């Protein structure tokens, strides 16, 4: 996947970005800079787990004590969008700080692909439930699809989180 996407070259290009020296200066300025960025990132991950992850589990048919899927989505999804935006920003800062650490990792590209797919799926959940609050309950086949897509969404988000956690462990070919 790394070769297919020319990720090493992408990492080298990130190295030439005009913003890179200022990000490096920021992270080297204080021993707390990097842990604080990682902290904000992990709070974002927690918000993902408390929002879209619960909605996906509810889609799968768990957490039936929350009676309305549409209500859950309306209340929780704004927090998901916020967490995705914050984590794309903090994630980009960490990647640009040390580009090839991420781009030469075998798990990083999968993580990013999963993130894009999971976000698209979450947007689809939001739009379908806004149009019709009972969309996923209105027929047998839609109930089945809700279970399948809920499970796919959970697996994608788990894949995003685990893939990013494993960046340093799986070094790819350059």
């Amino acid at each position: 996947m790394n070769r297919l996407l020319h990720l090493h070259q992408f990492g080298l290009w990130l190295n030439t970005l005009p913003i890179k020296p200022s990000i490096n200066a920021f992270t080297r300025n204080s021993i707390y800079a990097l842990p604080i960025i990682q902290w904000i990132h992990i709070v974002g991950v927690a918000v993902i787990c408390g929002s879209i992850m619960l909605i996906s589990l509810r889609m799968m048919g768990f957490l039936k004590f929350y009676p309305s899927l549409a209500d859950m989505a309306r209340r929780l999804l704004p927090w998901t969008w916020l967490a995705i935006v914050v984590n794309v920003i903090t994630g980009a800062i960490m990647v640009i700080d040390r580009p090839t650490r991420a781009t030469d990792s075998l798990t990083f590209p999968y993580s990013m692909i999963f993130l894009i797919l999971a976000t698209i799926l979450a947007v689809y959940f939001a739009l379908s439930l806004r149009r019709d609050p009972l969309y996923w309950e209105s027929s047998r086949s839609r109930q089945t699809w809700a279970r399948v897509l809920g499970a796919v969404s959970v697996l994608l988000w788990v894949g995003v989180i685990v893939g990013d956690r494993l960046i340093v462990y799986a070094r790819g070919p350059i």
Partner: protein
Amino acid sequence: MWWFDPIHQFIDGFVANFDDWLDALSDTDLVQGYANNELSIPIIESLHILSVSFVVGTILFVDLRLMGFFRGVSIRRAEKIVPYTWWAFLLAVVTGTLFFLQQPRMYVHNEAFQIKFLLMALAGINLAAFHFGVWQTADAWDDGRPPPAAARAAGVISALLWIGILFYGRLVPFVG
């Protein structure tokens, strides 16, 4: 952490009594067995981050309800996620223990680790005070009204403590 330094020195002096015992613990065949397996650390780290973020994520939203957000949702209903939080917490404790056993002496002397566990103890006290206090009267304010001050305070304190726990947990590998 200037504010914690006196406590840090006190704890350091105390736990130093157990250093030899802790080293012996990490030297056991059981701990060495998984510590030397190159797959064990990534797997433990992955499960730890997943369980910790589920724990904190679910707690944060219940805390927000206690603060007065999502008042259209019954607090009795919102709170039904908590058993799942406890299962995730159990997984976090198991994976955390597996980390700890690999280098227990480093952890007990690590300032960030000490603060993290202090904050977890405070979160436990806050939870107990809430559970045996204002939670017992929840039916009286579970109708969309603003929650009583004690409930809002418990929510704010819990959210701050858990966000702090994430910070000091993340700081552990950065400090000596």
